[in-house]
């Protein structure tokens, strides 16, 4: 994954939005973590999620069945809708990070729940 697309991705996954900061450079997108966290975890684009999911399943083909099962649940809950995905992920991501339950994809350290949902998005 290109660094530039991950920059956007990082801003959404970590909940760091664009906000005014006290220092010069705020206009360039400096935000305080507290302000960013208040927006809650958002999601990368579906294309980015598919890419992450494919990379994960390439490395862990044994998780394809679990990904398919999760995809079935997501479809039953309303499909690949961002609101639904956010509901599926929400607390799980926060809990993963609290417990350091992370997965690395191409070196990027990501909460496991996010990677699982990405894998679900990636399976057709």
């Amino acid at each position, binding site marked *: 994954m290109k660094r530039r697309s*991950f920059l956007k991705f990082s801003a959404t996954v970590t909940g*760091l939005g664009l906000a005014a900061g006290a220092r010069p450079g705020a206009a360039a997108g400096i935000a305080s973590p507290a302000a*960013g966290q208040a927006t809650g975890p958002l999601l990368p684009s579906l294309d980015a999620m598919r890419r992450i999911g494919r990379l994960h399943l390439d490395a862990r083909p044994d998780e394809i069945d679990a990904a398919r099962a999760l995809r079935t649940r997501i479809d039953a809950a309303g499909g690949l809708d961002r609101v639904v995905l956010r509901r599926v992920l929400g607390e799980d991501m926060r809990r993963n990070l609290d417990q350091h339950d*992370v997965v690395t994809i191409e070196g*990027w*350290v990501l909460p496991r729940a996010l990677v699982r949902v990405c894998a679900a998005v990636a399976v057709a």
Partner: protein
Amino acid sequence: MFSDLRDLESGSTLETDVCIVGAGPAGISMAMALAGTRTRVLLLESGGFEFEPDTQDLYDGETAGLPYFDLTAARLRYFGGTSGHWDNWCNQMTGIDFRRRDWVPHSGWPIGESDLEPYYARARPICGLDRHRPLEAIWNSLRVDPLPLDPAHLDYRFWEFAGPVRFGEAYRQPLKDAPNVRVLLHANVVNVQTDPEGGAVTRLDLRTLEGKTATVTAQSYVLACGGIENARLLLASNSVESTGVGNRHDLVGRYFQEHILDVLGTVVTDDPLAMIERFGSTWLGKHGYTAGIMMSEAAQEREQVLNCSVMMRYSASGDAVKTMKRLQNQVKAGRLPDNLAAGVWNIVQDLDMFAYNVYRRKMLGLPVLPKPEDLQAISFVCHNEQAPNPDSRVTLTGDRDRFGMQRVRLDWRTGELDKRTVMRHARALGAEFSRTGAGIFRIEPWVEDESMSWSPRMEGGYHHMGTTRMAADPRQGVVDGDCQVHGVRNLYIAGSSVFPTGGNINPTLTIVALALRLADHLKDADAA
């Protein structure tokens, strides 16, 4: 007083109470601690006051195993020793560094943190450091809110530094003035001679490069030649016991350790200035601090890993920061700056950042920051403890130096625990950066590689430890808790070669603390 073996009559015999071999931080600290007492001290130094290529060449040797620095570049052989190229980054080891850890083979010191605490307090000013300050006080002084790391996983520790203390310059005059201390320059110890049973040292044999000889007899002998040379001297002194002095259990030279330094990964953040403020180096007066992130003791135990710390590095391309630093230096030096017009133009172009940096420097006394858009990368570099490994070792080769002493081969090796520590620490760092909203961390590919390979950039810190390790049991270590060589009643070792494990921090402050403790031990023994 200072004298030079080249000026003495060849074949002289010198007699003293305590003979210290090596005038680096350990040897000089010991001599300073004994200055002004009734104990006669002879401090032997291979070199003179300045770097001399022929003397430095005596350090030449081979390296095998992991790539390592040229051995003639990894240390300095003249008065002041390796402090001559020391950056003076220090801190104290903490409780876990001394304890036996079930998950770290061969760990555990025979002494604890409390044994060294009073000596750390005395060592700090010798190394140019202020008194020890708690973390919270340092953060307050830096005017920075630390990232709220979860102590179940990660903790902070600070590296401290001051203007480098060159021991050879800082303590030359006091040693010259000390009536009971004699420093003998160009005195190369080529043999440690013991009695026929190997139970006591009877003399040291000295030579100059010009061929003069001398012998030293003393009540006590202290080897303070550094983590590689201490082992070499013991191994090469094999006229009585073929395996060398103090080596009945084949431990001398083994367990060589370094601190493993490499880039763990980079962080992507939309608040790079906060990252740099928190983790950049900051001077407060004459005392500098850099925040490091280490795995907490609870996490080390839970994850069964070593002690590891990381520090931040960043690269920036901003012309304004460079220009301002150059202008400041020129004005400070009393010169009208070169290219003043161009310099001012660079600053005017970056006026907002310039104004903020002036505020930081002049009002808060904090370092300047780069423009966020000029940042190229914010990386984190690990500074890892290495697991004691008997196969990581210093041995002698068939090559000989100008005195006929066998040269060394350094075979530096790491193990599975070292690599696993790096990986676990990187993941914990990434998880905490995400959890706290600081950014997303990308781990370098070599870290995730489950083979034993390291990155091509991996290097040590010029920290040579473990080759004459300390242990209560002679089968586990070369010296005991008082730094006395097991089985050799009047031979002691000072320096990081006695460290059983190396912690995650630079060794010099602990080297000096141990040297002061050994000096007290010899004083007590003399009084008894």
